[in-house]
């Protein structure tokens, strides 16, 4: 499986999640065992109207989606894995009017459990025409997902995600 197949699978998968579409999540990069998604800024997900800072719940959904979808980048066959738990540490509020990115990786895959970690971040502003490479961490998240096997997911849905190609 190459990165293009991974990106296509994740894109199709996220397309079936209504809340992910509602938030406008998009795939930035998919590699073996790692995935980056983007959450665009929107007035609709503000948690604090005084500051325009988006609510932590939208960050949680971004990180849950990225952590759950990176599994597609780690396994050759598509299987849906329910979330067992998530632990989110908030480092700083997300700056308003800027997208938030989340990069997740699977750091351990066993027969029953998949362990993930994920970082939500924003890119630093350009200053005086010089683009800074730096990022600012918004939140960190570790998650565990349960493997319930391929057969737990109907074949038509698996085919939809893989494009019929296993």
């Amino acid at each position, binding site marked *: 499986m190459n990165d293009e197949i991974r990106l296509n699978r994740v894109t199709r998968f996220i397309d*079936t*999640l*209504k*809340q*992910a579409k*509602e938030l406008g999540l998009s795939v930035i990069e998919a590699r073996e065992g790692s995935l980056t998604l983007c959450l665009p800024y929107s*007035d*609709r*997900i*503000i*948690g*604090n*109207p*005084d500051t325009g800072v*988006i*609510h*932590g*719940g*939208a960050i*949680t*959904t*971004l*990180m*849950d*989606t990225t952590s*759950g979808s990176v599994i597609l980048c780690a396994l050759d066959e598509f299987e*849906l894995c*329910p*979330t*067992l*738990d*998530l*632990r*989110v*540490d*908030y480092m700083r*509020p997300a700056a308003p009017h800027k997208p938030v990115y989340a990069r997740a990786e699977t750091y351990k895959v066993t027969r029953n459990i998949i362990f993930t970690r994920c970082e939500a971040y924003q890119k630093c502003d350009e200053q005086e025409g010089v683009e800074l490479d730096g990022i600012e961490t918004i939140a960190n998240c570790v998650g565990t997902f349960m493997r319930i096997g391929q057969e737990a*997911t*109907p074949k038509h*849905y698996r085919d939809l995600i893989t494009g019929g190609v296993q």
Partner: protein
Amino acid sequence: MTDPEIYRHTRETGDFTRLLESIPYATFIGLECDQFGDDLIFRLPKKEENLGNPILPAIHGGVIGGFMELSAAIYLMMSQDSMRMPRIVDFSLDYLRAGLNRETYAECRLTRQGNRVANVMVTAWQKSRAQPIATARAHFLLED
């Protein structure tokens, strides 16, 4: 949010409509809150846009997390004389059952209140309180 008038209105009437309308994310997921005596019950009515897994179908785990997180913050704000939304430090969430496409409820408990940090437990359920779909624990920073 920091509008003291909305805060006073909510305290005096037990009507959370204006408070919730002032928080866009609450409207985005459809969060509602009812007061029974001193107790608060948070509700997340059935909403198509909140779904994740299309097969079951089930509410997106992140929405359940966001619902519980916002419930905890409002609960904490109301349990104190604060007019500010407390800042969340961390959030630990255990998913116990799939959250099906139906109304979801949450209640909170203040486990420990210190000078600077508060620890809040949240339980979410659907058909039966005895069968929670998720439990969560959050730390909030109380100072500015």
